[in-house]
């Protein structure tokens, strides 16, 4: 099953220059709203989605996603609610979903239990930014046992050697941070990015998803031919904050 996600991406890519992956924080602004946002996104043609299980210490997230995490927790979102949500979403919608969250959520749940419930909920994989492969034995074993994809991250500071290590540990796709820093800040798409993406491509056979600062049609267009997937993170939360849930569909449609 580990090749399921890759196969899906390659298949889709034959029809589209670039795929879209979006990101939401579960329970922000509410569980119902989250489901509605997913529906709009899927309807608008999103190809994959990250569902973030909120955590109180989202160290790698910038202000927009950070606040969404907090609000969701304040509203009482529990990990169990996220699994319930996942089960429903994967049932209702055809696209693959990934969990995104931090180590402690998995650790407290128990790695094996987490991976098992994930698989049962139909979630294809997970992105855990504070769980590097060096700390990941239990996680990797549990994911492998359940046939879930552990998605790793390349960053502009990752060496070629380390890219190969990460590529060997991860599966499904490779998440490439377009720049340093946390989510939600501006990114300048430039020659440096091209060189870096070339390095990424050389280091792995996995499909490349590029995120961090991808926010509009222009950014997405720039990535065509350089990556397989453009990841829209903070920007959809911003759209929801500023224009309401119903603006999400049009926003996504406009990106392509």
């Amino acid at each position, binding site marked *: 099953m580990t090749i399921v996600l890759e196969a899906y991406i390659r298949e889709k890519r034959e029809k589209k220059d670039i795929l879209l992956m979006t990101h939401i924080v579960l329970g922000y602004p509410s569980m119902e709203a989250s489901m509605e946002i997913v529906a709009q996104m899927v309807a608008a043609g999103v190809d994959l989605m990250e569902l973030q299980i909120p955590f*109180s210490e989202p160290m*790698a997230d910038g*202000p927009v996603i950070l606040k969404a995490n907090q609000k969701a927790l304040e509203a009482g979102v529990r990990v169990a609610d996220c699994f319930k949500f996942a089960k429903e979403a994967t049932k209702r919608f055809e696209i693959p979903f990934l969990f995104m969250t931090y180590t*402690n959520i998995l650790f407290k749940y128990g790695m094996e239990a987490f991976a098992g419930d994930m698989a049962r909920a139909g979630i294809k994989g997970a992105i855990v930014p*504070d769980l590097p492969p060096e700390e990941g034995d239990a996680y990797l074993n549990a994911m492998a046992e359940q046939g879930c994809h552990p998605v790793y*991250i*390349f*960053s502009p500071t*990752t060496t070629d050697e380390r890219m190969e290590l990460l590529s060997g540990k991860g599966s499904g796709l490779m998440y490439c941070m377009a720049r340093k820093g946390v989510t939600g800040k501006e990114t300048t798409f430039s020659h440096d990015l091209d060189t870096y993406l070339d390095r990424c491509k050389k280091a792995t056979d996995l499909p490349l998803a590029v995120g961090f600062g991808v926010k509009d049609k222009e950014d997405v267009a720039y990535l065509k031919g350089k990556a397989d997937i453009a990841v829209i993170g903070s920007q959809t939360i911003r759209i929801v904050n500023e224009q309401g849930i119903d603006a999400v569909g049009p926003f996504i449609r406009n990106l392509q």
Partner: protein
Amino acid sequence: MDKRGYYGEFGGAFIPEILSATFDDLVAHFNGIKNDPLFWDSYVDLMSTYSCRATPLTYAENLTNHFGGAKIYIKREDLNHTGAHKANNVMGQGLLVKKMGKTRVIAETGAGQHGVATATMAAKFGFDCTIYMGEVDVKRQRPNVFWMEQMGATVIPVTDGTRILKDAINEAFRDWVTNMETTHYVLGTACGPHPFPEMVSYFQSIIGKEARKQILEREGKLPARVYACVGGGSNAMGIFSGFLPDAGVTCVGVEAAGRGLATGEHASRLCTDDASVGVAQGYKTFFLQDDDGQMKETHSIAAGLDYVGVSPILSQLHVEKKARFESATDEEVIAALKLTMQKEGIIPALESAHAFAGAFKEVGNLPPDQCIIINQSGRGDKDIFTVADAFDDPQWKAFIKEKAGDYRA
């Protein structure tokens, strides 16, 4: 990334990919100085010319007589430049930053002591400096903010999360992942990803080295017990490290019991069952968290102890029963502070006063031919706003109101 700094099951380096190379570099440099016999000398030289190491070991004769038990000695980290043990760690890391060729430092701060120490170090070494501080702490420790700014640092109040120490740490990491080429994150306690717990303990071990030598000179024997307050655990690690190999010495860490352990409004991670093992802020240790792994709100009268996690090294000492952990409530701390001021003319920081309170509960039961050491991690005059509030001093309030009136005019 090789050695991950584990102490039993605790520790590790749960860091975002982007910091991987930065940590490799940091570990390499830290290993470099550890293996360089000249480095420790240069560190001691800096600390004894810029700060006042060796800090004295003070015999507290009046407190000893008051309790009628073992002789009480106080290790005087309050006499450090900037007023707390935080200077040790910060100056050590400053030397490291110079070696690494970086030009900017960032730090989190809770009580403000670590922020002041870092701003001070940055001024001395000529680094740019940004300090992250929870908004709640900015309010309770305004004097420290003022001094940090005057020394040229930028202080950024953190308005996310519970707006205290842990949130400042998150925010510092967010800065770091953006600016790691130029910037070193001067973590202030023996927590966080490897090599910080080891590195901070290494610099703080100067306390224990001195204290061991001093007590042997003064008493001709080792202390029965050594007391330290435990926030992140750096001052405790600092003094404990001098005595851990000694079977006869009990190291006692005193955590913040806040409004009482039973109320849940505390910051005790090791001496209660309220905490459980988890992974956050880059390391694995006991955290005050709920079943989902979400961090809880903590409470202590001492901003510097108001923290959800604790040094992984202390967690392991706890599990192995190589150190004992107790707690003191806000109220007990205020009483210990008052007693120490009036008996000895010494003003411990509210953080340090936890160690005093912990020791006072036990020292009367020890025979007079034994001695104990209390680590006074810092001085209390930085805490005047908090202490005056805790003491509910009417004249202080009147003074502040009058001052405010002047400013309004």
